[in-house]
């Protein structure tokens, strides 16, 4: 039916907005408060955060396109089940690929790859966007949301890896803290903060990001 209209350019203003708003003004983690569980669980190292964001990019990107293509065929009464089947199949693919090519990371991420199924961002975008839009905008929406999610994940993980483990991408920043062979800052009494490694701290970190974001952009502050 929309064939009659003039074809929209691939990167029209509207389409660009689909990618840019979830980065800041409508960030899935800090504004919609979705996907918090994985933000707490896998942000102890930057590598894990990046792999997680990549996996979510694949699942959400492919999933949004598939759901969008199927949107007129899915009876609305069973749409959640259909969406779940789509996510589950995609997550299994990701899981197998990670196990085959990045066994170390896959082991560290353990169940959290499987738990991408329960990442609220994915079902949220299926329901809120892909069910009512064409494949190309749905794909852009997926990209925008995943990047918005990834930014928060990486910010949190940079902070947690540096101050919790004293490392950046696995490189020791402050010297070695192995008992008996301390070097660098550890010889003068510096210690890594164990609390930052614990999951609850990620909640504080996300909270601080939300604070900073709203302090910068007053329009985001809810009024009550």
């Amino acid at each position: 039916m929309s064939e009659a209209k003039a074809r929209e350019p691939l990167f029209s203003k509207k389409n660009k907005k689909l990618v840019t708003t979830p980065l800041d003004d409508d960030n899935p983690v800090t504004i919609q408060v979705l996907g918090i569980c994985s933000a707490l669980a896998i942000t102890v190292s930057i590598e894990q955060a990046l792999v997680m964001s990549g996996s979510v990019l694949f699942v959400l990107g492919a999933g949004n396109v598939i759901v969008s293509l199927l949107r007129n065929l899915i009876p609305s009464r069973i749409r959640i089940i259909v969406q779940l089947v789509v996510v589950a199949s995609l997550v299994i693919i990701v899981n197998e690929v990670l196990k085959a090519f990045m066994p170390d990371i896959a082991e560290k991420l353990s169940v959290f790859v499987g738990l991408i199924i329960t990442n609220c961002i994915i079902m949220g975008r299926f329901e809120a966007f892909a069910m009512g839009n064409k494949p190309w905008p749905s794909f852009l929406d997926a990209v925008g949301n995943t990047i918005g999610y990834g930014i928060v994940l990486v910010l949190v993980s940079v902070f947690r890896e540096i101050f919790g483990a004293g490392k950046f991408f696995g490189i020791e920043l402050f010297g070695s803290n192995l008992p008996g062979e301390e070097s660098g800052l550890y010889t003068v009494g510096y210690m890594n903060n164990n609390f930052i490694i614990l999951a609850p701290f990620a909640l504080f970190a996300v909270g601080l990001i939300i604070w900073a974001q709203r302090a910068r952009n007053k329009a985001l502050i809810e009024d009550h």
Partner: protein
Amino acid sequence: MKGIEKLMRKFEPSHDGKWHKLHPVWDGFYTILFTPGETTKKGSHIRDAIDLKRTMALVVIALVPCLLFGIYNTGHWHYVATGEIAPKGEYLEMFGDKVIYGLIQVLPIVVVSYAVGLAVEFAFCVKNQHAIQEGYLVSGMLIPLIVPADTPLWMIAVAVIFAVVLGKEVFGGTGMNIVNIALTARAFLFFGYPTMMSGDKVWMSGISGVETLPEGVTGATALGEAASFTFPKSEWVYEGGVKAFEANWTLWDSFIGMIPGSVGETSVIACLIGAALLLFTGIASWRIMISFVIGGLFVGWLSNLGAVNPYMELDPLLHLCLGGFAFGAVFMITDPVTASQTNTGKYIYGFLAGGLGITIRVFNGAYPEGIMMAILFMNIMAPTIDHYVVNANIKRRMKRLKTA
């Protein structure tokens, strides 16, 4: 006084001048020295003749016995660890040395705690153009008293920043916090740097430099020893609980505070002096204090009945005298901002906190200092308790109204 007043007035930044942003800082210093001349013109909200600064100052005064005893006790256990004096009996020997050593260990912590905490507080007040309030005067004194004397100063600074920013300023500053600031700082240290806050290496100052401890000295707190399943180590038998405690200590030791531990919380006597002052001036609620103690005694007694681990065998009275129970009962749980506001709520709040503290202590060997956890947890529960107390009252009165 007139001279100081004139000098202060001279430095007052005018509201439109270059330094107007610093007016809260000036105001903060001015009101510490003088009672401000301005009074509320209408719709007065004064509930009490005593203002926040005087309230806080009284709590700090109530903490002084704990601080002084803590300084002495730090020195005492240092010289016990180095083997220069016996743990028992030689209380007054080397008194001067003990006090000097204690001062060297404890005073820097106090200074860092105040300097960092007040700097954060001032920064937020200037940024938000609020009047500076004195909430930190008490927290700044509490923090040094609830950490081991050997805690590195930078850790204190980090913990204080964390506690003041995330415990208080994000909620709107003094009087708005939902959890106790000092305990937030301690919890941060406890989870962040567990090796500096637990175990048997930190409770006697300067112990890490000592190769072999004198005979009969273990380095653990009395509370920690009570849980040791294999004490004395040479015999490797189940000898924890009351037996382990009695091998080294008496109830009297822990009552006066001649046991290793955090700086200011070992002495029940010092806490009681503080309690007397707080109760006499009406700053702390006797309802909370009493129900906290009853809650602790009750759970201590219950755990005696079905003891399955050494902690559970401890006399409930010992529970009150060990660890941070007494200090928590007097200075932590009674914090009027974070406690329940209704009178019935105060009984429930205190009782649950005391009971929960002992529960954590006896069931989780990894967290012998359950009091901190229990108080923080109950801080969060306090508004819920108030909510139900108030609602119950409304319901009761509605009923009365209907029947009448």
